[in-house]
Structure formats: C-alpha cells, structure tokens
C-alpha cells in the first residue's frame, strides 16, 4: 500500500502541499484531480523523492528509495524519450534500469508493441515515430517491468479516443494484476470510468477524498434529466426548480433546491403514464470539480 501522511512542501513563499494524507491500496485505482498548480505533480515528485518534503511517504511500509524503485512504474506529465535510440534500445535501457535483464524483456517487446498498436518497428529510431506512437512507447517503458506501484501524470493528455481506450484497458489490466495505481487527469470522464477512489486538490490541499459514488451522492441528487414536450417556462414554474437548462429539443436539465422534490415533479410530468426520460442524479464530477476546485465556488 502507498501511504501518504501529512505531506507538506514549501517552495519559497508558496505552500505547494499542505498536510496531504491518503492511501492507495493494491488492486485500486486512485484518481488525482485538481486545477493546474493544485499540487498534483508536486505530490508525484514527492512520492518519487525528486524533492525533499515534510511528512511521511511509504510503499509497503518502506520509505521510497532505491530499494523500492524497481516496483515503481512512472509516466511523467510531458512526453520525452531519447530521440537517437531505437525503440528496442529505449525500452531495454529503461527496463534494465528497473532491474530487468535484456533476456527477460527482449521477447516481450513485440507483444507490448502489438498490444498498444504502435505504428513502427522496434528497430526504428524514436525520433522517426509520430508523437502519438512515442507516447505509446513511453507507456510501454512505464509498464513493461510489471510494476506494483504505477504513477501516471496526465496519461490521457493528447491521446485520441481510440488510444484512450487502449490506455484505459492497460490500466485496468494492471489493476487486475494487483498493482496500486495513481494517476492525475483533467478529464473527469476518464476518472469516473476508471477510479475506485478520488482525491481532489486545491491550492495544495485535499478538498475531497473518497469513492466516486460516495462523493457524488454527498452533494445530493439535485439534478433531473428529463425529456418532455412541456414548455421551458412551465418547467421553471414547477416547485423547487431553480434553473432550467435546455440540452436539446425537448430535453432539459432541471436543478432543484431540494432533492426530495424529485418524486412530486415526476408525478406532475408523467401523470403516471410512460415518460421517455426522467433521471434524478447527483452533480457530475465535472460540476463538483468546478465547484470545489475552480473559481466557481
């Protein structure tokens, strides 16, 4: 288990992290969300001992140092590899730095390249690959030694939907193999689709922490998605409706000031008959993110 306890970091006058505490268990995916400058990368840099910090960070109850480096797979925020190396040389070099032998890794390279649908040969120079394929090679470098703790800093940024699916599948496979995974993202869709737990950060502090469903429910089911031929003004006149947002023709989002009013609104709209759409939900992660992490607070 990755344990982060009372983690704080000061850069000059700037408090980059302030008493951050959470754990990531094996077989669990933790999503780390927050605006730029919220402290996500600083958290990762602290975990990897790139910077000195206050507090405690441990993996399997051991401090994170060279002894546990081989257990870690890390994908940095921006993509960069060694352009003059071939794909094979690059993967082997980083794998050998993770304590693997060339003999172990060499036969695996083709399989991983097929799995990630890398367009190119292993004898190609890194600089000859497209940006997207370089990104995939970097991901192979992160995962090929089958790490037990996987840290991914903005892994989905710049990927097209097909590659997002490939990456999501790789992350789920690693989870299935029992790895503890922590990743940061701006895309709430990825976070919602993959994460068991979520940590939301704002200005170096944890503002939300828990299971995705629990967090959403915490905010109350004050949104109703409905498809109806009622006029917008009539919908706005319903009791406890404070806002009506037209999503498309005849499709609306009603915001309530009281979640219990949902039942009454359903009765009024349906009169007990069939209705195409009526769904009462808590706010989306996106909305919670805007509310808690952004300036809309």
């Amino acid at each position: 288990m990755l344990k982060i306890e009372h983690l704080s970091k000061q850069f000059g006058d700037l408090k980059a992290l302030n008493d951050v505490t959470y754990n990531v268990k094996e077989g669990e995916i933790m999503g780390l969300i927050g605006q730029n400058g919220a402290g996500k990368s600083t958290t990762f840099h602290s975990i990897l001992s790139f910077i000195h910090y206050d507090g405690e960070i441990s993996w399997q109850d051991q401090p994170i140092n060279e002894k546990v480096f081989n257990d870690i797979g890390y994908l940095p925020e921006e993509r960069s590899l060694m352009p003059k190396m071939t794909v094979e040389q690059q993967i082997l070099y980083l794998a050998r730095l993770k304590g693997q032998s060339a003999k172990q890794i060499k036969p695996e390279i083709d399989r991983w390249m097929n799995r990630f649908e890398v367009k190119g040969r292993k004898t190609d120079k890194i600089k000859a690959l497209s940006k997207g394929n370089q990104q995939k090679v970097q991901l192979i470098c992160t995962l090929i030694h089958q790490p037990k703790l996987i840290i991914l800093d903005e892994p989905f940024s710049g990927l097209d939907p097909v590659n997002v699916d490939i990456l999501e599948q790789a992350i789920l496979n690693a989870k299935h193999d029992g790895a503890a995974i922590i990743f940061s993202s701006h895309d709430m869709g990825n976070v919602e689709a993959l994460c068991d737990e979520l940590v939301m950060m704002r200005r170096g502090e944890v503002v939300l922490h828990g299971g995705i469903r629990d967090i959403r429910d915490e905010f109350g089911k004050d949104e109703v998605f409905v498809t109806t031929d009622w006029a917008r003004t009539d919908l706005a006149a319903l009791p406890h409706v404070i806002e009506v947002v037209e999503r498309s023709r005849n499709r609306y989002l009603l915001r309530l000031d009281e979640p219990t009013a949902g039942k009454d609104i359903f009765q009024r709209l349906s009169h007990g008959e069939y209705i195409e759409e009526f769904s009462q939900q808590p706010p989306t992660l996106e909305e919670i993110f805007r509310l808690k992490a952004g300036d809309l607070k």
Partner: protein
Amino acid sequence: MKKMWVVTLTTYLRQVKSWSFVILVLSPFLMLAVSFGVGFISANSTASTDDIAVVANQPALRQAYIKVAGKDNVNTKVKTASAAKQALKNEKISGYVVLDQGVKYSAVYHGTSSMDTSDKAQLTTFLSKMQTQSNVARAKLSRTQLNQLSQQPVFKEKVQKQTGIAKQAKTVSFWILVFMVYMILMTYSSITAQEIASEKGTKVMEMVFSSTTAAKYFCGKILGVLMVIATQLLVYLIGGWASVLVARNLSMTKSFFASYGTLVDKVIGNLLSVNLLFLFLGVIIYTILAAFSGALVAKAEDASKAAYPAVYLSMIAFFATFPFQNNADALTVKILSYVPFFSSYFMPLRVINEAVSPLAVSMSLLILVISILGLTWYISSIYKGLILQADEGNFFQRFRRGLSYK
C-alpha cells in the same frame, strides 16, 4: 552498481558506435598512411629517372660497380652502350657510365646534365680503389711494404650527442603531451557537456531518476565517457607503437630512425611515464567539470554552449604553459603544478625537465585524486536538482536554484 554499469555501458556504446568517434580515432592513422603513401609513390616515381646505367667492356667490372653503387641506384636492365643511349634518349635514365679496364681504369659519363655529386664521389672512390688494387698487383710488393703504404691519417669527432638529444627529447615530449591533453580535453569536454545538457529538464530523466539514484547515474555517465577516452588512448598507444615498429623497418623512414632513433625512444619514454597518469586524471577532472557545466545550462537546446566553462579553463591552463616550457623551475610553475585543473599541464612540464622530486609528484597526484573524488561526490549530491529543473536566468541564478532544488 548494476544500474550504474547499465548507464556506463549505454553511454560508452552510443559514443563508440558513432561515426564521429570512428573518424576521430582513425584520422591520425589515415593521415599517417596517406603521407607514407605519398612519400612512397613520389620516391618510386623519381627513382627510375634518377637511376644511371653502367656499361663495361668486362662484365665483372660492371658487376663490381653495381655491387658498390647498390641496385637501387643503378638501372641493371641496361647492359650495352646502344641500349643505354636509347634509354637516355627516352629519359628512362639520367645518364650512363662507360667503364674501361686497361693499365688505367677509366670511366666516361654520358648524360643530359652533370653527374650527381654523390654518384660522382662514389664512382671516383671505386675507380681509385680498383686502380690501387691493380697497381699493387703489378708492383709485386711484399706484405710489409703493402701495410706501410696502406697507413691512413686518423680523424675522430667527439660530440656531446646524448645531452643534445635529451634536450631535444624534452622539448618534443612537452609539446606532444600538452597538445594531447589539450586536444583530448577540447574534444571530450564538448562531448560530455552536450551529452548531459541534452538531457537537461527532459522528462525522460524523471523516468531515469525513478529507477536509480542521481549519484549512480552521474558516475555512470562520467565512467562511460572515460571509457571512450581510454579506448581512444589505447588505440593511439597500440597504433603508435605499431607505426613506430613499421617505420623502423620501412626503407623510406629507416634513415630517419637511424639518425633520430635515440630521440624517438627518449620521447616515448617521457610520454609513457607518470605523465600519462597526469594526462588521464586531468581528462577526468575536466570531464567532471564539463558534465557539471552541461547540467547548468538553462535548457537542453543550449547544449552547444554547455562546454564553454571547461573549454575556457582548459585553454587558459594550456596557454599558461607556453612561457614556461624552458623555465620549469619558475615559482608559478611550482605552484600551478599542485593546483587541480592546472597540474595536468604543469607537473608533466616539471617531470620532463627533471625539475621535481618523486614526493612532489606524488603530492600533486594525491591532491588531484582527492579533488576528483570531492568534486564527484559534491556534484552527485546536487545533480538531481540541476538536471530536473529547466529555468531561465543567468548561470549563477541557475546554479543557486539547482542547489536549492530540495
């Protein structure tokens, strides 16, 4: 250690497999081969037209002269006067000698210009020797009379040759050594600084530092570059040794070695001494400095400027030796022969001039080794901070920020 070795080996193989390294290492040998080749071709092409032919009324006399003059200088294929005339006309030979043996020995030279002075001297000596032998035979002298007539005056020349050669050897050794140190430093300071600077602030270094410690990575890199330098030196040593061996036996350079063999041996002796250790340690400390300055560039794109501090310091030390090459006892030389970065130039200067005790040499070596270890330890400890940050600002601001990246 295993991970450090991975870094070392990768750095080493990447460098030695590059075309620039192969060309760098082989270029002196190629130049040597080309100059030998040109010398050989020009020697051969001039040899044929410079030859003379010998014609005689008695074959034994002709053979006796060819034996004295050497087959290299005589065109032995031309045997008759008419053939010689034709060969001269066709410019195959520079001239021909017609020898005649009677009571008197005579020789007539036919050529387009005067006979070469050394050929003329050789011919005259040959003729007088033959004439003397003939005279003695005709005079029927006793052995005693013959011995008395053979008495020659004595002239001996005694020159202090060894001292002259030793001094020459010192000068030659000095220049070879400082140039070797300077050239190697210039080349490898740039290679090292650029190698490190190109990684500055790149995210792949975060992947590397999530796998091994910055200290191991830094030492691995330095060791890799040093192995490349050692490879180059080894190729030069083996190649140089082989070239000397070949040159000693090559007809065109044989005479050079006959005259300067002692000098060459002395120069080799001066180089293959403790000076080689100073050269290698000097290269190490400058390589570390170059790596450090590489890590201090603002960003990877500035890699080409990275080597400047190491290169400039090396140039200062190099040019500082010039005024002192014949004055190894000067106080400045004595002081600088202990100062790291300068000692690699100045202590060999004192060693070559035999102006230093073994204790002083050992002290200087010790200071150099301690400096290398200290510098390595210090840079290793701040290396992660220097490499992971990519900032604008001047050199000193970046240095300060690198130190405070904690």
